[in-house]
């Protein structure tokens, strides 16, 4: 079997991570923001799998599992908050959440 440079795997993860970051920074729709956060977390997971493959470990996969758990919990809480926000403000515009400042 041929080999894949670690570099390429990590760079792919970095690209996905950066795209996710752009999404978080740009989108006003909070659902998209949450989706972008998922992209970032997933990029982290990918980096772990790449690193695990570099060492031939199973540990990286366990970390991936934990990220999966974390993502699930975060999405659940995040979507709960979105529902409340939509109820109160009737919008998914993240900019309405700016009453506190200073």
């Amino acid at each position, binding site marked *: 079997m041929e080999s894949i440079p670690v570099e390429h795997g990590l760079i792919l993860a970095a690209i996905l991570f950066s795209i996710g970051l752009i999404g*978080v920074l740009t989108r006003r729709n909070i659902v998209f923001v949450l989706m972008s*956060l998922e992209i*970032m977390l997933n990029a982290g997971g990918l980096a772990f799998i790449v690193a695990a493959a570099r060492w031939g470990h199973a540990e990286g996969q366990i970390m991936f599992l934990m*990220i999966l758990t974390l993502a699930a919990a975060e999405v659940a809480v995040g979507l709960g*908050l979105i529902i*409340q*926000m939509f109820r109160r403000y009737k919008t998914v515009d993240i900019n309405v959440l700016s009453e*506190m400042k200073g």
Partner: protein
Amino acid sequence: MNITLADLIPLLPLLITTGTVVVAMTAIGIKRNYTLTAVITIAGLLIATLSAAFLMPTTNSQVTPLMILDQYSLFFIIVTCATAMFIAIFSYPYLADLDDNKEEYFLLLGIATIGAIVMVSSNHFVSTILGLETLSMSLYGMVAYPVHSEKSAKFPLEASVKYLVLSAAASGILLFGIALVYAQTGTLQFASVVNVANVTEGLSAGFTIAALILVFIGIAFKLSLAPFHMWTPDVYEGSPLPATTYLATIGKAAMFVVLLRFIEASEALTFESFVLVVSLVATASILAGNLLALLQDNLKRILAYSSIAHMGYLLIALVASYFVQGSISVEAVTFYLVAYVIMSAGAFGVASVVSSSEREFDSIDDYKGLFWRSPWLAVVFTGMLLSLAGIPLTVGFIGKFYIFFAGVEAALWVLLAVLIIGSGIGLYYYLRIVYRMLLTDDEEQRFDVAVGNNLSSHAVLAFLLVLLVVLGVYPTPVVSIIETISTYIL
């Protein structure tokens, strides 16, 4: 490294806290009773504290690769559980009038404490992440807790969304950084990155540094260090006061313990550019935190900004740990963390005691004339503020002195100059509040300060005040404990 029955003994505080949550949850399932849930939680946390205190002198074991239960961990488990118990005591009267389900709050508080316990005894990235996220996840809930209450004066929803979105982004950065460290070292255990960087073929120092910086940034966000601090005041302000207290005390202390262990184990400070990065962050935090607090009128925001600065002070001691032989800087970090927890819990505690979920008194004008209305609360509050400002004979002074000492030993003159400038500015806004309390109150009573209605909260305040003064006047016993436990870190 599989878990054995003997391993369960050092895990006792963790198991007790988990058990408490399970019992409380079952009780809620059977019948909702606010007082009962609170009592179960407080009692469970008390037992957990005592069990940790009981275990501390003799325990030193690595339980599976995930958790290290040495004296240092157990010391912070005591701090964590005790503080959580105090916050539960503050929470009980605070939430009593909430027109919503109130019981789940204590579940979240208990689960958050589990997360904090895992964090302070973690020397492995898996447990770090799990502990951290358990803590954060519960805090999202605690911060947004009064979200259904129409009478809630604050913006819990806004605070929680801000916290969740930014914290998740920071977790993403942290995870990515950990993945890069793992790619480098091949282990998820906290381990030295230095030898790997030099020895392993094909891996460069630049990669290691980038990875370390990403991890540091992920942690720096949770510690609200500049420039990752902007969420702090908004989240502090919007949260119900007991949740703010939790965030400001346990949330910070547990995270800093992880940072300390990670930095010491990874020997990250051997990289000069990493030292530079940490120093930059420390400088930025001290200056930004203190300057932001200067003209602020909201108590929670003042304390939020000042916490940014305090975390910056702690970083100075952390940086010093590389330059100094022996454990003086670890001791400094440890002592300051304890001091910081005491004074923050006390300062927020005073505000919690006079506030309720329907009306929070978080403008410094609300405390105008407090010396004449309630000398007792004013004395506690003044003590906490003077300690935060680092006035002698308070624990805050000894803590700051410790850091100063570590900095002098390490000859970090620039950072020390920043520390002095920061402390000077800090004095201004802390004294501003004290001065406000000395004014006469020409307007109507702002809040009821009768002590009788929540005696237990006042007892906690009294305890914190005693600790503040005793540790400020006669800190030697605690210092000697900290000297002993700090050897476990190095």
